């Protein structure tokens, strides 16, 4: 470890933090410069991360410890190994591009400085999460990204729906934080250390019950952060935040923290097959359910939110069954194409003045051609068309489930791939194909009557288009090319890159079918999905009668889908209502009869004491003098009579 590497690591970690403070403090003065400053800080971090590539991939990575000691036996250090490097590169690289994009997207917003301060703070929190070399640092980062997410979802705090969504996201995230905290207690109790290295060294010798408990607690944290069933309900609501936030936090980075958690704790999962089974199953269920729900959405951002949830389900499935390289690879490629999809959607929303419903779109391939290209390439990548990055990562995950002996998960994954193809192309056809339906009244499209909403913010400050297009262009390159790293399976650069972490854990059963055959099956299903979407939305007759067809679909939408499988209602019934009842109990009985009564008693006591002592407060100077003398006499008596004076 060299000194300059240490300095670089510290700089790349703290730069967004200081930038956030500066922007926060000087916001009103900075105005437009806030975005430039925030983007520069994150991109500089990215450059430093690239410069540290060689050091991080060396055996053992770049491990700075102890950096800070916060209690005897508890030290905080930074660890940059291939796994955290992947995340750092995505956080700062894709994050930097999204910062750049935000300069254009948020140009007209009054609170642009606040936005960039939050965004930089988020980057810092996320870097803390992935760079920490111990459990407590991980928990700190874990909590901070939740806070940053809360701030950013509720960024437009004058919208009640945004505030409600922020609160929901925060509460569910805190539920996950508690799980993580519990896991830390369990692991610390079992190993006596919070450092990753110590915990993993002792993982093999721990009783399986302890490992299973810790794994389940960790997975609660991962599920809350990564929107896995049954803690997924906050993610679609989180789309209330500005679109760049959705791209950065709720697609590319934060929601994948659960994947990082599982990949980081691979030694624990390897030691507990039951936990792997559980995680893989939950991932598959989430992927499937989210994909089904994705077919029923009309809001362009909610479609992307459900697809995010579904893709994270893939990642969780991958890392859950033990195909860590594939799961992390899917995170890597997904960060590109999903950020690109969100930013493309942002271009559309921007161009249509905050219109997010795809029924009010249509024909946009001519109105916003650049956004169309971005969305189309993103769609091809996400559904896994060969040549695009999603193909390599998703097929690796799907085949990985089979390699690790989970045929049921494999089936679910394949079906999900088909549904994904269907709903992504549905979005593409409805929004970009056919004719523009912006002037069609809501009722004719089967939409609920909307308040004539005032423009959220007047579009005054004009920023050249390239500010928003260049980041998307860079992401297009990534979402096509990122997968090429993995060509060649276990001999590919990607597998060798992660081999220092997962090289030894390849206990795979011979899969019943070859990888090529598996890919062909998936491809066939995907093509079927695209075909169905084309038949329903893309044909000439379908586009001609688009208004009527969309209206009919909207009205006939099954209630189970519009209510997202009633998860919200179930949570409301099982947790929120009992909690409210408990709150009412406390407010009605415990608070007035116990706490307030105690306070009242103290008040009464103070008053009584004051009443007594008031008699001494005569205002007579001579009386005070007498009191002083009497007290002094007491002291002198003590000294003289006990002999302490001598």
């Amino acid at each position: 470890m060299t000194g300059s590497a240490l300095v670089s690591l510290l700089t790349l970690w703290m730069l967004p933090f200081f930038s956030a403070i500066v922007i926060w403090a000087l916001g009103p003065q900075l105005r437009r410069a806030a975005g430039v400053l925030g983007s520069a800080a994150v991109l500089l971090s990215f450059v430093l991360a690239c410069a540290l590539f060689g050091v991080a991939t060396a055996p053992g990575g770049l491990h700075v410890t102890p950096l800070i000691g916060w209690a005897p036996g508890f030290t905080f250090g930074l660890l940059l190994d291939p796994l955290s490097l992947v995340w750092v590169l995505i956080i700062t690289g894709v994050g930097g591009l999204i910062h750049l994009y935000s300069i254009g997207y948020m140009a007209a917003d009054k609170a642009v400085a606040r936005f960039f301060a939050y965004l930089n703070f988020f980057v810092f929190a996320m870097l803390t999460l992935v760079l920490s070399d111990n459990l407590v640092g991980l928990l700190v980062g874990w909590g901070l990204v939740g806070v940053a997410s809360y701030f950013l979802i509720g960024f437009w705090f004058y919208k009640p729906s945004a505030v409600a969504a922020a609160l929901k996201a925060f509460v569910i995230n805190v539920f996950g934080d508690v799980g993580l905290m519990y896991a830390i207690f369990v692991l610390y109790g079992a190993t006596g250390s919070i450092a990753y290295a110590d915990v993993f060294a002792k993982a093999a010798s721990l009783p399986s019950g302890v490992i299973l408990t810790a794994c389940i607690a960790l997975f609660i944290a991962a599920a809350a952060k990564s929107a896995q069933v049954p803690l997924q309900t906050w993610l679609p609501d989180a789309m209330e935040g500005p679109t760049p936030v959705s791209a950065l936090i709720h697609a590319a980075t934060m929601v994948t923290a659960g994947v990082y958690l599982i990949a980081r704790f691979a030694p624990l999962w390897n030691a507990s097959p039951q936990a792997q089974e559980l995680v893989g199953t939950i991932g598959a269920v989430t992927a499937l359910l989210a994909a089904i729900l994705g077919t029923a959405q009309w809001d362009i951002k909610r479609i992307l939110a459900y697809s995010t949830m579904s893709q994270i389900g893939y990642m969780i499935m991958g890392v859950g069954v033990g195909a860590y390289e594939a799961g992390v690879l899917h995170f890597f490629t997904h960060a590109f194409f999903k950020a690109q999809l969100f930013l493309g959607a942002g271009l559309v929303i921007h161009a249509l003045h905050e219109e997010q419903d795809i029924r009010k779109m249509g024909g946009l391939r001519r109105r916003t051609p650049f956004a169309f290209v971005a969305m189309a390439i993103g769609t091809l990548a996400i559904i896994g068309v060969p040549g695009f990055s999603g193909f390599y990562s998703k097929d690796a995950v799907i085949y990985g489930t089979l390699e690790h002996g989970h045929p049921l998960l494999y089936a679910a994954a394949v079906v999900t791939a088909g549904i994904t193809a269907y709903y992504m192309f549905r979005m593409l056809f409805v929004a970009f194909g056919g004719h523009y339906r912006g002037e069609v009244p809501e009722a004719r499209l089967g939409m609920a009557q909307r308040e004539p909403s005032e423009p959220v913010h007047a579009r005054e400050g004009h920023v050249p288009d390239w500010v928003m297009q260049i980041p998307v262009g860079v992401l297009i390159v990534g979402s096509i090319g990122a997968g090429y790293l993995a060509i060649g399976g276990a001999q590919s650069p990607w597998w060798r890159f992660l081999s220092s972490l997962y090289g030894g854990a390849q206990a795979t059963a011979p899969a019943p079918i070859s990888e090529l055959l598996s890919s062909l099956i998936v491809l066939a299903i995907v093509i079927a999905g695209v075909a169905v979407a084309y038949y329903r939305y893309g044909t000439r007759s379908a586009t001609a009668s688009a208004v009527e067809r969309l209206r009919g679909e909207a009205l006939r939408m099954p209630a189970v889908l519009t209510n997202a499988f009633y998860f919200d209602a179930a949570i409301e019934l099982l947790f929120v209502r009992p909690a409210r009842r408990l709150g009412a109990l406390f407010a009605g009985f415990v608070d007035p009869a116990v706490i307030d009564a105690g306070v009242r008693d103290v008040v009464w006591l103070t008053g009584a004491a004051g009443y007594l002592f008031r008699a001494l407060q005569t205002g007579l100077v001579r009386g005070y003098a007498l009191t002083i003398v009497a007290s002094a006499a007491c002291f002198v008596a003590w000294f003289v009579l006990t002999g302490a004076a001598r």
Partner: protein
Amino acid sequence: MILFWILSVVLVASAVFTVSQKSPVYSVVGLLINFLALAAFYFTLDAEFLAVIQIVIYSGAILMLFVFVIALLSSGIGPFREGPNRMPRAFVPAVAVVALFLGLVVYGIARGPLVPTPHQPTSTIGAAGNANVFGSIADFGVALFTTYLLPFEVTAFILMVAVIGVVLIAGDAVPQPTLGHHAAPKRKRRRESIVKSR
């Protein structure tokens, strides 16, 4: 030893006289005698400089200040009067506490002679200009301007603060006949509100 007893009697008698007089002017005279006796004590204790200080500053300056204030306050009002005693029952407890306290202290002193051990024999006789001689002016001066320089400087500061305070409290409160200036009455009223006692 005889000198000690004579001076003690003078000291206590003058102190009692000071405290017990009805008129403050007599008290000042008692205090003057007390201070002079104290100066004599200082001479016997080899503190010539302090004896001089005692006479010059206390008797000369501070007591004169008292006399001036008495003159200032009694001019035009006549002899001092006191209002009703608001602590009429304080006499017995006060005397009891004071007597008890005094008894305690004297008991503490009387338990053994206050002789320093081990004793450091140092000359107490010699020329007043010799810094090695205890209690000489040179000895005192060297101590004051070297070891105790900082406290000495701080006293200068305290005196300055006191001067400013006196000017602020008493200086402006003299009721001036208004000169017809329109700002003057306002200012006066504000000052009065600070000092008014009833």
